[in-house]
């Protein structure tokens, strides 16, 4: 096909060279290959989200929200309509926020120690910090359960929180450490040369410069904690059902539209957060 188009263009040129050449769609793709590839990749990435959003407006026949029936705002008007879902969501948020706060504080302290000081066992800690990331979640979840069971620790909110802090910690450390490594130590020397004592140097120079790393680490920790299923499932009690557990459980019996409502809300929230972050970042460098 492309050959015939090419000859067609040649004859057109011969006949009327002044007239604008007709461009085939293939020529357009060839000239804008990067844009085309990027658009396709973006569609591939966003399609599942679009489906989630779309089906939050569905009114399914029966219990399963898998086929499109007709548009309805029922689920949006009654987001807690599915029994038990909002309780699970509340628990997930509570665990996510608690785990994020603890993991971010501990992780930031760890990152400063690893990034700034030379001490015995530093390289060992550097290596071990990667271990929770590298361990398969099934292994981590089951071994944590073994630990809790052998110590007679009752499963529930506490055990889930401990488990979540554990795997979030590594991600915070790695993110913050990268930021500290990129921080010029001469900036702190310059601050102390300019009459700032240790505390002022930390609050006015070090912390503001490391803050983007800490924020990124905290966001990462929250999203990891919020959607964790495997580790949580091992260490939860029947009364402590998190949102991912609720979704999984309901998928056996029927999926309420409200799940899509929560999914859409989370997606919009995340996009808004990123957009604000970008906007603030751009304002700052201006």
């Amino acid at each position, binding site marked *: 096909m492309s050959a015939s188009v090419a000859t067609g263009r040649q004859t057109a040129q011969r006949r009327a060279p002044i007239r604008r050449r007709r461009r085939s769609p293939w020529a357009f793709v060839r000239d804008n290959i990067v844009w085309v590839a990027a658009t396709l990749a973006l569609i591939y990435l966003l399609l599942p989200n679009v489906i989630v959003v779309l089906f939050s407006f569905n009114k399914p026949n029966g219990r399963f929200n898998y086929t499109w029936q007709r548009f309805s705002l029922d689920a949006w008007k009654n987001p807690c309509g599915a029994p038990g879902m909002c309780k699970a969501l509340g628990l997930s948020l509570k665990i996510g926020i608690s785990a994020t706060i603890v993991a971010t504080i501990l992780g930031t302290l760890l990152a400063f120690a690893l990034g700034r000081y030379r001490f015995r066992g530093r390289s060992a800690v550097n290596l071990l910090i990667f271990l929770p990331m590298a361990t398969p979640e099934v292994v981590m979840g089951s071994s944590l359960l073994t630990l809790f069971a052998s110590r007679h620790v009752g499963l529930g909110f506490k055990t889930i929180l401990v488990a979540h802090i554990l795997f979030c910690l590594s991600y915070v450390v790695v993110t913050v450490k990268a930021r500290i490594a990129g921080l010029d130590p001469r900036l702190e*020397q310059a601050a102390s*040369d*300019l*009459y*700032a004592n240790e505390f002022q140097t930390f609050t006015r120079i070090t912390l503001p410069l490391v803050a983007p790393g800490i924020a990124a680490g905290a966001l990462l920790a929250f999203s990891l904690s919020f959607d964790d299923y495997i580790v949580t499932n091992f260490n939860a009690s029947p009364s402590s059902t998190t949102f991912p557990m609720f979704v999984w459980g309901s998928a056996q019996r029927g999926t309420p539209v409200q799940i899509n409502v929560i999914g859409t809300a989370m997606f919009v929230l995340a996009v808004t957060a990123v957009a604000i972050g970008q906007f603030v970042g751009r304002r700052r460098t201006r």
Partner: protein
Amino acid sequence: MSSLVKTFGPFTAVDDLSLTIPQGSFFALLGPSGCGKTTTLRMVAGLEEPTSGTIHIGSSELTGTKPYQRPVNTVFQSYALFPHMTVWDNVAFGLKRRSQANVKKQVDDVLELTELTTLAKRKPAQLSGGQQQRVALARAIVNKPAVLLLDEPLGALDLKLRRQMQMELKRIQTEVGLTFVHVTHDQEEAMTMADTIAVMNAGRIEQMGPPAELYEQPRTTFAANFLGQSNLIRATVKERVGDSVVAALPTGTLRVAVSRVPEGVNEILVGIRPEKIKLHDEPVTAVDGPVGENTITGGRVIDASFIGVSTQYLVKTQWGQEVMVFEQNQGIANLNAVGDLVTMSFSADHAFALDAGQDVSAGIEFDPEAL
């Protein structure tokens, strides 16, 4: 500063260094990289603890105090501007930490002095190298420190901008009257700006004095070679005639003023700067101008390069040494060509003598920028 010593493990960066810097002067610490000049500066700033020795400013001792307790500010080589603050906030930083009154006026005044007023709201990343350099300077001088330390602050700038900033620095120093201690490896920069230069080598001060004195009368081969270029010719002291010393060369003799010859030394190096030597065609006639008291005959021009301002010759003596000669361009009627047989002449007052028991090539460094 007295008996300052700093060691890093087995390496002695600064070795028993003592010096006094007069208040209000522009003082340069000049030396090749790794000679300990930056370490010295960092010890004054408090960023490095001396292994032994003390540092005083006026009558108060600084040794052992924290950097933020010292009336000293530094202009870092990398500028170290705070990237998250505007130019104005960078400059105000030191004043605010000491809860000074009138921060706004003081900052605005300094920004005006350094011609940064229009850039006050910008972030460091939006400035050129020269502008960043001025911010670093403004951030330090706004605090009116007893001593301002400059750690190769012009190193990152291109040649033209560097020349411009040298003048600017000198102007600002004169205007604010602070004591500037400037660390540099660029001898031209040190000579242009400083009232007093201390030439440092391997953690010690080789020689200290005003630029002209250092240039005209270096006391070590290192100083002679590092500050400008020198021809060092081996000779033996023969006799004293009046107030000059006669020294024997492999062929012929040279005279050097007694005051410029180290005492009690027999084997000397007679030093002469290339621009002080005059070339005469052999046989010597009046055509090439007056002949100096010292002559070295039988030289052969082995290289000549015309560079406009002057012509640089390399002349091989009868005993095989290569002598550098720079002749001012005062008409190109009488240039010498490669292969010419010439006599070199120079005044006895222009020569200096050094103890021959030193490394003749000390201080000659390959500096790609100087070529």
